[in-house]
């Protein structure tokens, strides 16, 4: 089809044919790909991925345990309809309410927040509050959020996780009954909260969706020690995805950036997620877990959301992420070679 047809329909889904220049001949895998997949004992998996058919648990396990990086990259390319929208990194700013609320009065709290947001208002950052104590919700917090919106317009205000919002340990909100969780979430929503950054608590996703708060599911791989656990996590996510249709964005990550080997593990798990979580809209590459180089490679591993970049050094340190300017620079710059006047065709 060469350069004339840019898009085609494969397995009922619109696909970008330029990606398939080397992979398909008349809708089927070319002999080179067939041969490679056979060599990797992954021919059946390749055909299933191409046709959009779901992989079994054993096949998921094979990918986690045995698939080489080259094979995973190829399977990502073969996934049909993976023209998911690309979300470039958004600027974010942290307001450390955990300390400010106790240090200063309500007015001072608002002033400090205004000052911090004003310094980077032109980049229109999302605002992340690190803690929302419920005893101050109806007073200082609500007023703060309201003043911010009045002054700076429709700012996205985020909390870091459901557990932290509840003032419990991460994942601790599981012990509270649903109706109490819902009532608190509604209060937060009415106070002005837009959503949460990431949560591991998949059992409460439907509550977040009901209330209208945005969220993401985060899996910290440093808490997972075996391949089987990764398979179990992916299986569970697929069930949540099917059952509630509540899984829009998944973040395979680490608690904090580690070695490059750990980074590669995150990328590989992201790739496997992109292959097996067929209904998910976004898989996030976050600079919490990945270096700038890793972020640059992440798209090849199936990531299509690049999370947030810090607008100031305080935010960068607090969240362990890179500055937004640098992230955008790295992700948008084309890499290529000088072309010589003498052309090889």
């Amino acid at each position, binding site marked *: 089809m060469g350069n004339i047809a840019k898009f085609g329909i494969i397995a009922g889904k619109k696909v970008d044919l330029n*990606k398939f*220049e*080397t*992979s398909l001949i008349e809708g089927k895998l*070319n*002999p*080179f*790909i067939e*041969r*490679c997949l056979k*060599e*990797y004992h992954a021919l059946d998996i390749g055909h299933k991925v191409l046709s959009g058919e779901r992989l079994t648990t054993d096949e998921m396990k094979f990918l*986690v*345990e*045995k698939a*080489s*990086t*080259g*094979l995973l*990259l*190829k399977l*990502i*390319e073969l996934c049909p309809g993976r023209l998911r929208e690309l979300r470039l990194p958004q600027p974010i700013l942290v307001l450390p309410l955990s300390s400010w609320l106790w240090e200063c009065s309500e007015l001072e709290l608002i002033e400090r927040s205004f000052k911090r947001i004003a310094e980077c208002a032109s980049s229109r950052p999302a605002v992340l509050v690190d803690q929302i104590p419920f005893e101050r919700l109806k007073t200082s917090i609500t007023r703060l959020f309201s003043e911010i919106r009045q002054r700076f317009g429709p700012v996205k205000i985020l909390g870091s996780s459901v557990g932290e919002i509840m003032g419990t340990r991460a994942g601790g909100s599981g012990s509270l009954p649903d109706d109490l969780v819902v009532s608190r979430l509604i209060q937060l929503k009415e106070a002005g909260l837009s959503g949460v950054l990431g949560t591991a608590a998949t059992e409460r996703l439907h509550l977040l969706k009901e209330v209208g708060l945005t969220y993401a599911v985060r899996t910290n791989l440093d808490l997972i*020690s*075996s*391949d089987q656990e990764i398979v179990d996590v992916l299986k569970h996510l697929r069930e949540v995805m099917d059952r509630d249709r509540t899984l829009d964005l998944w973040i395979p990550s680490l608690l904090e950036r580690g*070695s*490059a*080997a*750990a*980074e*590669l*593990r995150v990328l590989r798990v992201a790739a496997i997620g992109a292959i097996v979580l067929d209904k998910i809209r976004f898989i996030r590459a976050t600079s919490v877990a*990945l*270096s*700038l*180089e*890793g*972020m*640059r*490679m992440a798209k*090849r591993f199936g990531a299509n959301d690049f999370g947030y970049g810090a607008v100031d050094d305080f935010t960068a340190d607090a969240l362990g992420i890179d500055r937004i300017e640098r992230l955008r*620079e*790295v992700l948008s*710059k084309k*890499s*290529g*070679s*000088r*072309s*010589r*006047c*003498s*052309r*090889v*065709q």
Partner: protein
Amino acid sequence: MKRIKVSNTNYIITMPYRHLAGLDFVEYQENSATASARKLHEGEVDLALIPVAELAAHGGYVGLNYGLASRTGHGTIKLYHRVPLEGISRIYLYQGSSSSALLLRLLLKRFWSFSPMLVRTPDYVTGDMLARNEALLVLDESPVIPTCEGMRCTDLVREWYRVTGLPFVALVWAMRPGALTVKQHQILNRALQQSATARLSLARPVTVGDDVKLKESEKYVNTVRQAFAYYLNSRIIEGLQNFLDMSADCNLLPACRYRPAVYSLFKKEAGSSVAAMPVWQILQNVLDGKRLDISSAVRLARKASIADLSMVAEQLRSKVVIKPSFAVQVLHQEEHLRDKNILESRLQRMVESGIKSLRFDPQNSRLNKIEHYETLFHKIKERYGLFIEAFSVGQLILLARRNRISTQEAIARLVTAGLDAVSAEGGELLITTRMREAGHTSFSAEEWLRVVRWVHRYGAGSCCCLRISQNDSWEERFVHLHKLRLLQDELPGFRYFFTCGESYPENIELHLRITLTARIFLDNVPLLQVSDFDSQKINDVLQADTCASRLAVKINSKESNYRRALTAVRKNIWLYDIQDEKSRRSSVSELH
């Protein structure tokens, strides 16, 4: 009309092509055949008369249907020897031999039943210097070579004709598609035609010495008229294609179809009548063990996905190593090697900690007496048996110069004393003009290759590399790799290959792409190494994961405890291996 640079060869037999110098849009020059090919590869000329071996090695040129062919089997490629062919153990090849050397190798592999060592030699080697079971391959442009009188002579072109019945093409006028306009090609075609018919008056042997009789000289001119063709008709092209196909079958060359320059109605520049092979088919050929030409490699590098390149590199690696190894060297500075006590204690610690390889980086300003290094290496070898890697090519040249000996002699002495390998420094991109830009002014690309050739010839090893720079074009990279590959074919000695250069986030994909395609192209250097492996760098880990066979780490000799340093290195590598523990895919073995 834009001017074009044209390179003819400086052989008597191609003198008729001097006619091209008279064209007003041509900047004419003459070089040896291999130099002409190099200039064409590197873009210094637009059109050149090049060996057919270089035509196939590049794969991206079109031909003008003119060159130099032998119709009836008489050629100028002669093998002089004293014993029958089967008794020859070593053949010396003249310096610029390309198609000649290829013809010899094809005959050896396909039709003759013996395998002598092939050694490239300076042109001053003559027949009377040979031992009884040695032979000399020459480009014989005169009726008789005085120093080979009395020796047997095998005409390789006649041999080719005998076994195939086809003409042999040694040289072809070649260019990149688009180098000439239609009008320029028409004018050049006319000039080439005139050259072919004017050969009688131009081809008189001008180097006939005083002692050669006139009768023999006239006989030679008549032979030339009957034997050689300058226009490549269909039969001659059939012979050319046959030669290329057979060489490809024997894996001496990448597969190549001769493509004449053709012009389409819409394009005013010469194109090719043959459609380019799809990228997947190129990759398939690589997996089948077929050699890649420069043009196909450039296409792969530009168009193949990282996924495809990774899969091929992984499969190539698995044919060579079951799992990657890691290697540790202790890096010694010049001043430590001059203090006997410090040196001995450090070497002893090395041996006790199990590290067997040392690397020595002398300072240029302190390179003086060669005897000092000879004594040092000899002692280290005798007492500790360590592997010694030292000197760059530039340092060998400098050392030779300061000791007023030839570089060849300096290498021979150092290797005899115990030098095991030299470093790749200076050979990051073997294109002389680009080397000058990078500040390497003391030697050219060809000198670097010549020195390394001597290193290999004397039994020591070296390594080769490619720099990562966005300022280099893909073609430049593969021309560089082609030179390395050719050298390795002739005189294997490169122990491993690595990529080098500053790594930063924006170029990580380029770095990986360069490394993967280089791995695929350099099919005769089995190991790809990640030098100074750092498990904190995703770039290094990705290479280790997809294509590298060796992870190398250097310990500074100043380290007080080599065992502790080695443990830290193992932990460094083990961090990479954490993935192994959880994923049970691959693991790393040690190799010092």
